[in-house]
């Protein structure tokens, strides 16, 4: 049985930089777990610790029931696909794939048959005598995969293997890797900063921030019930809409104030999130996914705003609606915006100064809204998310 277990794992570099803190994570046998997070969140360090390429400063790592803290990388029996593939440029494709087998002193005929089998699985048979520099990005990626699968290792470790490919190829390779992993049923740890990759490929996702595991679970769980503001904003594209709101009691009923607008919270929502009661009279962060905003429906919470932009994607329309409200400006939100672009931070701060929030709503392609129009939008009362503004924790 090859499961991978982190037990209180930490990594501190000699200069004092802490890359990973108290990581506790179980990756079950045959699972495809994606470590995801913005740059510098410690995901690659965690992966390299499994491979043995980084020493573990604190805690223990187990692979298939064996503690591997002091085991050399070559004796861990894991295969790794690197971000730049790390194909040996002086070897042919055949030799690249055969290298791990030759290291085990496997008989030549067996090496040949295994390499040929791996090549046929990955469609590389015609390329076996070529050098890596003569291959396209996608072909190199396949060779790197070939080198990983040929050994039949206990686990696959993949460090952003698709980040050097163009968008179309990335979608294709995403599916190929997922299929291959499913067929081989080998425990896989995949690192990416792309949440779409994480959502589409992983059977489980672990979101990291500043070396700390934020939330781990099946993709849909993370999407539907994010543990905190960071996960809520990081998972999902377009990201969850966030705005400051105040919870007040009017005639004994919990009412949510967004800017100068208000709506009553439904009883079912309060039953599902009993913690909200404790926030009566306090400010919270209100979150709503783009697909949970739609045209007005009687009896549902409504917000008024002005349409700023309509992006037609064919299958749907993304409507950007500006409403009078205060944006949520917490450390995690700023960090994520900064990861995108410094201009995104400025836009958010400008919104804060002008008390404006831009919401993105996913409308059907038939919606006739156009830019500049005043519009009333409706929030799906059952799918609202609330977060503590100080801790960022989700209120359930």
């Amino acid at each position, binding site marked *: 049985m090859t499961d991978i277990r982190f037990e209180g794992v930490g990594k501190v570099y000699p200069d004092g930089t802490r890359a990973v803190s108290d990581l506790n994570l179980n990756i079950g046998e045959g699972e495809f777990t994606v470590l995801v997070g913005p740059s510098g969140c410690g995901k690659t360090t965690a992966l390299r610790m499994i491979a043995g390429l980084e020493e573990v400063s604190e805690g223990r790592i187990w692979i298939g029931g064996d503690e591997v803290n002091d085991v050399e990388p070559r004796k861990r029996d894991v295969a790794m696909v690197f971000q730049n593939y790390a194909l*040996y440029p*002086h070897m042919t494709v055949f030799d690249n794939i055969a290298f791990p087998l030759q290291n085990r002193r496997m008989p030549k005929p067996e090496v040949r048959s295994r390499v040929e089998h791996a090549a046929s699985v990955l469609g590389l048979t015609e390329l076996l005598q070529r050098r890596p520099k003569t291959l396209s990005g996608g072909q190199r990626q396949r060779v790197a995969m070939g080198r990983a699968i040929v050994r039949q290792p206990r686990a696959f470790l993949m460090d952003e293997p698709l980040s050097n490919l163009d968008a179309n190829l990335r979608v294709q390779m995403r599916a190929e890797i997922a299929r291959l992993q499913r067929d081989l049923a080998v425990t896989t740890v995949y690192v990416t900063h792309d949440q779409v990759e994480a959502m589409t490929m992983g059977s489980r996702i672990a979101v990291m921030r500043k070396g700390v595991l934020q939330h781990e679970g099946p993709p849909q769980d993370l999407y539907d019930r994010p543990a905190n503001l960071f996960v809520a904003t990081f998972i999902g594209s377009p990201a969850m809409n966030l705005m400051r709101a105040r919870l007040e009691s009017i005639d004994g009923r919990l009412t949510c104030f967004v800017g100068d607008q208000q709506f009553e919270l439904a009883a079912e929502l309060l039953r599902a999130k009993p913690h909200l009661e404790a926030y009566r009279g306090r400010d919270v962060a209100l979150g709503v996914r783009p697909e949970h905003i739609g045209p007005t429906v009687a009896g549902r919470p409504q917000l008024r705003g002005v349409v700023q932009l309509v992006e037609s994607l064919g299958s749907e329309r993304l409507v950007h609606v500006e409403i009078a409200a205060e944006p949520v400006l917490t450390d995690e939100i700023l960090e994520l915006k900064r990861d995108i672009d410094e201009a995104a931070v400025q836009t958010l701060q400008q919104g804060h100064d002008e008390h404006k929030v831009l919401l993105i709503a996913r409308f059907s392609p038939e919606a006739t809204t156009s830019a500049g129009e005043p519009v009333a939008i409706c929030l799906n009362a059952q799918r609202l998310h609330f977060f503590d503004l100080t801790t960022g924790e989700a209120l359930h």
Partner: protein
Amino acid sequence: MLFRYTHRTVAREFVLIATALVFCIPLYLLLTMSLKTTSEVYTAPLSLPKSLNFSSYSNAWKNAGPSGMGHALFVSATMTVGSVVCLIAIGSLTAYTLARRTGRMSTFLYLLFLIGIILPFQLGMIPLYVVMRDVGLTGTVFGMIVLYTGMLMPLTVFLYTGFIRVLPRAYEEAAQVDGANLRRTYTRVVFPLLRPVTGTVAVLTGIIIWNDFFLPLVFLSGTNNEPIPVALYSFVGNYVSQWNVIFAAVAISVLPILIFYLFAQRELIRGFAGGIRG
């Protein structure tokens, strides 16, 4: 792109051809002088030879050094190849360790090698000679290989270290995860990746050793193991120098290098200019 053959191009080509001709003058002198008779060398040094006189070549071949030109060539080649092989084998391994270990000790050792490049050899020549004589390494080709390996090691380590420092670690890490031990990682992955700099080291140190006159003069003079530069010197006297024979001997000694360049030209240029691709 359309190539336009303009007046400017003509002028540029003319300048290039003229420059190339200037560079050919030493070769012209070398060949014409070597084919002239002794009297012709002094009466018409720059003109073409009246008749082709190959006797200087046979004279040079037979009388250069104590054992003739053939033996001198053999000594030079053994010394050069032996030293270059040792420099590459030891230098690349040393540099690999220095470049990959980031501790203070490796920085200190690296600086020590740098000092080795800066310090003039002549400063340590006498103690070095004494030590070499005491251990019985003077007068032997093996001794010269040891001497050159030590002397050119700082330059070799400097060149290799600079190259390895910018070599991505991912290749070595991939090899480790692929199950290779340190020796196999080095021999199968790292060393082949050092090919461009190995070419540079081989050419640079090879030329230095092949052309060196001073060290063999000090350490090999008077023995049967004189390399080409020292052997050539046997034709230079206090009162009479046989320039036609000297030039013929130089032409013979240049020949192996020319042949090497001719065949390895592409590899060498790639070595000097290349990085790692793929």
